[in-house]
């Protein structure tokens, strides 16, 4: 039985606590009385994953067993989540590979010949052949790549189709092949409560015309949080779109969840609570930190990005997308939710080296912002861990570095747009159309491995709710010029950051530290 999540109140006996800071980490002594929010202990993974997949496909929720939906002569499209989840990437074989292999076996047994596999990458960069192979496995890759295993192309007008409009006037436009299939099988991995369910097809296979209805400042400011679908305007939009899709398409959803075994054995101390570190863990911490600090930056990045998580699978559920997702949500929250008694004056987050958009890439300043003020800030239900007007303190070096191939429009966004304004509404009004329709960005998105031109703007909107909520944002260890460009401040140490926060929250602030990763979602009462 895994222990539930809990909140530690720092006292004299509390050891220094682990803080992620990009491609590194440190132990930090928090002020007495600070509350530290830990996730539930990692849930046990399934022992017989393949058996569970078979069971899910044979006993789906609200649908006939998959084998009964398959028939010779049909068009079958298998769509799978792209490389943005889970984080870090899963140790192979990836759960998507396992599920897809089972689906293909059933399809083959039924004589289904017309099968296409599509990565649901929406406006994310295309996955490279190596990344596709890693996700779907050697066997599937060899059989289907490149003609029948590909990335979704949100700018291929000839291969997009408009399904209709919701009652709110939201255009639903998705991949034509999927839309014209007799059956879409969506293979999902849910790492957080925001993904999966209605988001899968309506986002993963959509175009900018469709995505702009929910990826905008207004929606994100009214998604509190976007990890709490019931209170998320963004998810309400997904729901409306998914309703329309459900009326016109035949979607069989397969969702999986993972446990909190985030880091591999050689850094297993990163998965543990600090006071439970064994002597071996302490030695591993010292050795790894020393080696990491001494490693050349390029090598350090390579090492971190080669990290593969030994996740256990905690659920596999198949069938009707809505019913399936209810089960998925329960499993995600079971692993991540921790009750917290009220917000604090100051929230602290240690930001790791990876976010959904820098797998095998560089965490540029915009991505740091979206990870901190977007993803991590929004890891809450009811209310944020920091009060309105409070201060967010993040740990990250926030270096001014960009991946020129993956993030070309991010460079221009940082240099030009943020030099002019950091206001999300002003940015949306003046720049979104330009970035979304720029032919060069579109060319790079379609033919290179670049995120879509509008993506950095979306990342900025991701933090819109936090920017509105917070009184100040301070990055401990952050590059001064880079953080200033984004409208934030930087401090050399936590003490400095607390001193800087004093003008907002006084000299004796209350502090909540969200201890993640492994991911923790705070249920703030």
């Amino acid at each position, binding site marked *: 039985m895994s222990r539930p999540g809990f909140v530690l109140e720092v006292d004299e006996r509390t050891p220094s606590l682990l803080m992620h800071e990009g491609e590194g980490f440190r132990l930090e002594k928090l002020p007495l009385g600070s509350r530290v929010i830990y996730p539930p202990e990692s849930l046990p993974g399934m022992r017989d994953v393949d058996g569970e997949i078979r069971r899910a496909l044979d006993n789906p929720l609200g649908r006939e067993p998959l084998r009964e939906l398959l028939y010779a002569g049909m068009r079958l499209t298998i769509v799978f989540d792209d490389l943005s989840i889970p984080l870090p990437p899963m140790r192979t074989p990836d759960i998507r590979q396992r599920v897809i292999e089972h689906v293909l076996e059933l399809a083959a047994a039924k004589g289904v010949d017309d099968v296409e596999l599509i990565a649901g990458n929406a406006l994310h960069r295309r996955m490279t052949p190596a990344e596709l192979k890693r996700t779907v496995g050697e066997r599937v890759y060899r059989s289907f790549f490149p003609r029948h295993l590909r990335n979704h192309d949100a700018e291929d007008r000839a291969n997009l189709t408009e399904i209709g409009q919701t009652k709110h006037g939201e255009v639903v436009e998705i991949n034509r092949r999927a839309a014209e299939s007799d059956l879409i099988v969506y293979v999902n991995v849910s790492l957080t409560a925001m993904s999966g369910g209605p988001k899968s097809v309506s986002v993963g296979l959509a175009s900018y015309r469709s995505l702009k209805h929910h990826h905008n400042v207004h929606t994100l400011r009214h998604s509190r949080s976007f990890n709490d679908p019931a209170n998320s305007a963004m998810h309400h939009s997904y729901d409306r779109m998914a309703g329309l899709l459900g009326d016109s398409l035949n979607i069989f959803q397969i969702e999986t969840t993972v446990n909190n075994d985030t880091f591999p054995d050689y850094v297993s101390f990163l998965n543990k609570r600090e006071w439970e570190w064994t002597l071996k863990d302490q030695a591993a911490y010292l050795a790894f930190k020393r080696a990491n600090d001494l490693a050349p930056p390029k090598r350090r990045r390579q090492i971190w990005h080669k990290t593969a998580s030994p996740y256990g699978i905690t659920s596999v559920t198949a069938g009707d997308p809505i019913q399936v997702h209810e089960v998925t949500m329960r499993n995600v929250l079971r692993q991540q939710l921790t009750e917290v008694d009220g917000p604090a004056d100051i929230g602290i987050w240690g930001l790791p080296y990876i976010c959904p958009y820098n797998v095998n890439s560089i965490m540029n300043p915009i991505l740091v912002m979206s990870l901190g003020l977007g993803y991590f800030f929004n890891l809450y239900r009811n209310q944020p861990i920091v009060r309105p007007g409070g201060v967010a303190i993040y740990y990250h070096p926030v270096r001014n570095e960009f991946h020129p191939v993956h993030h070309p429009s991010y*460079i*221009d966004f940082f240099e*030009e747009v943020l030099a002019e304004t950091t206001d999300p509404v002003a940015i949306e009004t003046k720049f979104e159309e*330009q970035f979304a329709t*720029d*032919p*060069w960005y579109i*060319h790079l998105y379609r033919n290179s491995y670049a995120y879509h031109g509008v993506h950095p703007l979306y990342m900025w909107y991701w933090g819109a709710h936090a920017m509105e909520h917070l009184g100040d944002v301070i990055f401990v260890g952050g590059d001064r010029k880079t953080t200033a460009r984004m409208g934030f401040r930087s401090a050399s140490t936590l003490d400095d950051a607390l001193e800087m926060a004093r003008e907002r929250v006084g000299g004796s602030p209350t502090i909540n530290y969200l201890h993640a990763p492994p991911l923790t979602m705070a249920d703030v009462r």
Partner: protein
Amino acid sequence: MNLNLEYHRSPLRYAAARTATGTIATGRAAGWWAANMSPVRLVNRPEPRLPGPGWTRVKPLLSGICGSDLGLLTGRNSPYLSAVISLPFTPGHEVVGETLDDLPDLPKGSRVVLDPVLGCVPRAVKLCPACEADQHSRCDHVTSGMVSAALQTGFCADTGGGWSRMFLAHGSQLHKVPGELDDERAVLVEPLACAVHSVRRVPIPDGASVLVVGAGTVGLFTTLALREYTKAGPIYVVARYGHQRERAREMGATEVLSSDRAARALRRATGGFLARPEQGAEFLLGGTDIAFDCTSGSGLDTALRVVRAGGTVLLSGMPNASVDLTPAWFRELNIVGAYASGGNDFQDAMALAKSAPLTGYVDAVYPLSRWRDAIGHASSSGRLGTIKVAFDPTKDQ
């Protein structure tokens, strides 16, 4: 006796200045090295004698330090020009001064600015086709006539130059300064005239996108002239320093860019694709219609890389850097030079000097005796927030 700063023949000092400023002490110390190692000396010479009728002695009130002067002192100017100078000479061709002799239309004591080109008229030779067409900056006779070889005053052994207490000028070179134009503005007329000339060197269609690389005196004045005398559309200026950015906007720049961001920013502004070679800077497939290089060559590479195919690159300052000309071939670019001024450029520049926001452009004035400080300051003018450094020879006792 006439106190003047004299540039003399010294291959050793020339090489030393070129080497020192080009290698071990580029950047902040370049001015110091140039001032101390270049073949320049402060000397007293006998007063110059008028070479013939129509000439007058001029007492400089202010004499600017130009980029081409600095190129000379750092040994960066092209040896190509060595055939059209005569040593030793006194530099200084941006001059406002006072005449010391009576001329038919210019009584003694007139306040004048100098058009430095030494064409056929001052040399008293038969007019070449260019001078006949009122384009004396293209004069073919700059090595003949009654004064020694020199493309212009400030490079001529016989006439002297503005970095002195006295030099010689022909009446045709002098333009009377209206009373309302103070010395600080008047000394800017010559570089303004060059800028006006440069924007007239190529037809600039209405609405054309223009890039000005460099925001020193030449770049700022080119921006001003573009706004005043053309109907150019967006004007993008590449500026290095904060004060240059502000002044470029004052002069009418649509957007001011930093040099390392120029290609990306122009791609966003004008459309097109960005190409990234394995070596060297990025370039555009697309870009602005016209680019003015106002950097004495260091920004020419940028200009060549961001002008659209079939566009025009105009060399506004004296180019003294080597550059990869592949873009000119591949993108079929027109490369056009613009040297000095001609026609009505000087009169138009005079009018512009009255109306343009030029207050504070000359904010560092030195006596000749502090020439090392002056040259050091001028070499670092961008970093020090200065646009134009000038000598005031009347300050020397």
